[in-house]
């Protein structure tokens, strides 16, 4: 009962405390696609953003931008979490079944990028090649359907696709012409003949007629008076060619200092730690409740239904990936509710961790010598004293190290949070890499930060363990 009330309170807190203000137009995008949307000075800017700002202005609203994974954008719009999606989204029939497209604002050519010395001279020569694309983009769908003999390497980012080409892991990259011009290095070339030409539109929820017509009006106007082309020119050439600045100090400068990029890392650290701490507290709570229920049932036969629920909770959570749990909680359970994503993260990781904590506690209790429990009963102690005075203090010795381990795992698992748009440490490195076009430094830096956090935690837990053992000597 207490658990139910607690969850209810948590939900009310999440929904009410973080409700969407009336005057906001929520734009959802994936900000790693210059010149359409990218991070600069800690803000998301780009052609799509310029257009949406105009739409918001026309509506008399404030524009709020959400940065999520590209494959989550349609879902965000469908579930009313966002009003409009813009991320260089190609108009396809498949997508048009899920959401409504605005008029096209940009003609996009899917082109083949190869090394200058490549024998590939035309898209018609692709048939048996290994080609990198960004997952879920038009290039991906086009190659899958039209050139099935191609071995497709699906990367989360264009940048990673280009990196594959640099490393000769693939013989070419198929992608949009505009970002391609931004991304290619001096030894690459874009083949002139496009594979396919498609058209970018923005997406709104089906039936949102008012937003659709205003967006169309703004887009048509901007196309007419040339301001979209202007915006495109303005946002082009923002690439900093880090590859020319190869010293570590330069890499450090461009990854951390320039443009205030350390802010992403700091935000990432804070979110990672907040989510991990919040989740471990919830995890111990949920896991504790589940194991208490199971223990009472095991010893007295009471609480049959709760015991069944606790058993299923552990089984289901341990049997499914945390990333799916996170997305189910965000896109299914909190469907059409405006919730703070960090709180969703805490709740999801807390529920996930609880299942493991329940097993940790169960194993800890089982490890307690049965003889001591019997001695307690033989002295006339009731179950509650046997548990609280004999079993739990003994079990704690085994539980604490495992719990520390679980916390450390949790710190690293929060990296999954980027899927629903949480800027945690891994996402921070992603944002920086999408600006510098260099994965090396941000990834190593963030890896070191994770390592530092876990080292500190290990030290803290070791000290606690030692104290616990000392108390007995």
């Amino acid at each position, binding site marked *: 009962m207490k658990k139910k009330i607690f969850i209810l309170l948590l939900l009310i807190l999440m929904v009410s405390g973080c409700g969407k203000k009336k005057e906001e137009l929520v734009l959802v995008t994936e900000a790693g696609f210059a010149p359409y949307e990218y991070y600069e000075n800690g803000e998301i800017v780009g052609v799509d953003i310029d257009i949406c700002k105009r739409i918001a202005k026309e509506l008399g609203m404030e524009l709020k931008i959400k940065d999520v994974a590209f494959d989550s954008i349609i879902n965000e719009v469908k579930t009313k979490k966002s009003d409009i999606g813009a991320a260089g989204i190609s108009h396809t029939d498949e997508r048009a079944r899920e959401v409504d497209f605005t008029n096209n604002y940009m003609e996009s050519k899917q082109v083949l990028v190869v090394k200058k010395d490549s024998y590939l001279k035309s898209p018609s020569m692709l048939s048996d090649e290994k080609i990198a694309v960004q997952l879920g983009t038009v290039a991906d769908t086009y190659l899958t359907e039209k050139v099935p003999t191609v071995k497709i390497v699906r990367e989360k980012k264009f940048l990673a696709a280009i990196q594959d080409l640099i490393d000769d892991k693939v013989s070419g990259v198929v992608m949009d012409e505009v970002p391609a011009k931004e991304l290619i290095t001096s030894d690459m070339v874009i083949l002139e003949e496009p594979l396919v030409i498609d058209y970018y539109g923005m997406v709104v929820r089906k039936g949102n007629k008012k937003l659709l017509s205003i967006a169309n009006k703004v887009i048509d106007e901007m196309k007419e008076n040339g301001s979209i082309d202007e915006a495109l020119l303005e946002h082009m050439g923002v690439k900093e060619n880090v590859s020319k600045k190869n010293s570590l100090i330069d890499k450090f400068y461009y990854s951390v200092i320039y443009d205030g990029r350390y802010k992403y890392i700091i935000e990432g650290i804070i979110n990672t730690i907040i989510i991990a701490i919040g989740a471990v507290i919830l995890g111990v709570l949920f896991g504790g409740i589940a194991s208490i229920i199971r223990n009472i049932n095991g010893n007295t036969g009471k609480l049959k239904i709760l015991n069944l629920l606790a058993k299923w909770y552990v089984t289901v959570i341990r049997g499914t990936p945390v990333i799916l749990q996170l997305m189910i909680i965000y896109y299914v359970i909190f469907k059409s509710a405006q919730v703070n994503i960090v709180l969703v993260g805490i709740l999801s990781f807390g529920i996930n961790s609880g299942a493991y904590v329940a097993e940790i506690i169960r194993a800890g209790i089982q490890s307690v*010598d049965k003889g001591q429990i*019997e001695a307690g*009963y*033989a*002295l*006339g102690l009731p179950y509650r004293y046997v548990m609280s005075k*004999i079993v739990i*203090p*003994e079990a704690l010795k085994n539980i604490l190290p495992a719990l520390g381990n679980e916390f450390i795992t949790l710190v690293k698992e929060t990296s999954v949070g980027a899927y629903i748009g949480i800027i945690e440490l891994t996402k921070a490195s992603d944002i920086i890499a999408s600006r510098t076009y260099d994965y090396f430094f941000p990834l190593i830096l963030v890896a070191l930060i994770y390592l530092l956090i876990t080292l500190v935690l290990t030290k803290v837990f070791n000290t606690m363990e030692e104290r616990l053992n000392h108390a007995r000597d």
Partner: protein
Amino acid sequence: MLEIKNLKKNFSDKKVLKGISLKVEKGEIIGIIGPSGCGKSTFLRCINLLEKPTSGHIIFEGDDLIDNDNLEVIRRKIGMVFQQFNLFENMTVLDNIILAPVLLKVMTKEEATVEAKRLLKEIDLLDKASFYPNELSGGQKQRVAIIRTLIMKPEIILFDEPTSALDPEMIGEVTQLMRKIANDGMTMLIVSHEMNFIKNFCNRVIFMAEGVIHADGSSSDIFDNPKDEHLINFLSKIKNV
């Protein structure tokens, strides 16, 4: 004071106790002997319901312990001493002894501490009061375990192979303490493989085999003048060893 009626215990489909009946009078020192696996330890553990009997009745001072809501209160009067001592590893010797009387509000913490120290002094272990069990020898642990039971002022104490886990040189200190308690008039049920100890110490001996009582009589009836075939067989095997 204690009457056991037709006690049966099955572990899944294995019949361990096949109907045991026994009357225990106040002040009796009863030894229970028999070959390994005859069910004597299970029988003892059924008396205070550490094992739940499959059927039968255990009547202690007029109350049937089976399905008794007051089981915990009755258990205070039935002490138990285990083969493996079963001291609470995370507590000092003193805390081991005073835990139950204080939690169950039989005594205040001060009273319990005074009483525990008095008992510790009697067995020459007062200097170990603040030690943890893992710092004691086996004999010391078992004597502390006996005191932990004694402080609850039980009417009867069940000893489940109290000396089997001890090194030979430590058996004496434990049996000596048991003799002392017996002299004070305690009722005792002792499961043991120490035949000489049972023979000299107990005023009544029960022989169990295959889940039933085969012989029940005075120490001399059992050891010097055995009549039951199983018992004769059992005693001859022991002599051969």
